[in-house]
């Protein structure tokens, strides 16, 4: 199984990006790159694809779903797994996001000390499903 080492986080709030960087980078020892918009993420990921992308849902100009759709339409990005990080994560919404191609949904508010474990678990489960 490939270990998770490099994640990208997309959120329009600068404080949230810093929290994600601490939660995954400092607490989780992952390499983290952050983007402030879907458009910035598409450009950055094309240049340097992350293993996993954490996407905020409600962002101006390009929502998380719009960003996911754009990734799935781009050959270089279509296979990068996406996890939505959103406050709008009831079961109906989560089902909708998975149907759109998201690997999983993590609810906000995040727990900074636990997020890296949640993300690694999602990654490992997905890898095990692929291998079996």
């Amino acid at each position, binding site marked *: 199984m490939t270990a998770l080492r490099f994640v990208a986080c997309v959120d*329009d*709030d600068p*404080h*949230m990006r*810093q*929290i994600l960087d*601490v939660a995954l980078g*400092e*607490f989780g020892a992952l390499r983290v790159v952050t983007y402030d918009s879907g458009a910035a993420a598409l450009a950055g990921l094309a240049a340097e694809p992350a293993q996993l992308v954490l996407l*905020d849902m*409600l*962002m*101006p100009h390009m929502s998380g779903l719009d960003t996911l759709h754009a990734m799935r339409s781009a050959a270089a990005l279509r296979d990068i797994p996406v996890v939505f990080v959103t*406050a709008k994560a009831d079961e109906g919404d989560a089902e909708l996001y998975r149907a759109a191609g998201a690997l999983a949904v993590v609810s*906000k*508010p*995040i727990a*900074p*000390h636990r997020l890296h474990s949640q993300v690694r678990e999602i990654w490992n489960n997905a890898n095990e499903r692929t291998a079996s």
Partner: protein
Amino acid sequence: MSDRLRQIIESYCDGLPDEIERLSALCQTIDFEQIRFSAHRVKGTARSLGLEALQDALLAIEARARAHVEAGGGAPVDEAFAVDIALLRIVAAGVQPRDSTLWKSIATPAA
């Protein structure tokens, strides 16, 4: 290990007056979608930091803006936004980094 989290919480609280002024200015416009996004953004972080009173005050603005968006956005500027902003200012004035549940969850470093 949690110094950066403390700095983020302090930075967020320090920036609240400016955020509220930006939001207040937006609430003078009819750009309800932008009001919604801005309130949602600031609220989302308040929620993640565990600043519940602030989160509730911002939620009121986000919900009002969303209602305008869903109604088609043709309505005039709602005077209730001014009340929401006034309440937000009162709540924000009392917010301290140590009110954050995330701050409280961070163990005090050894002296």
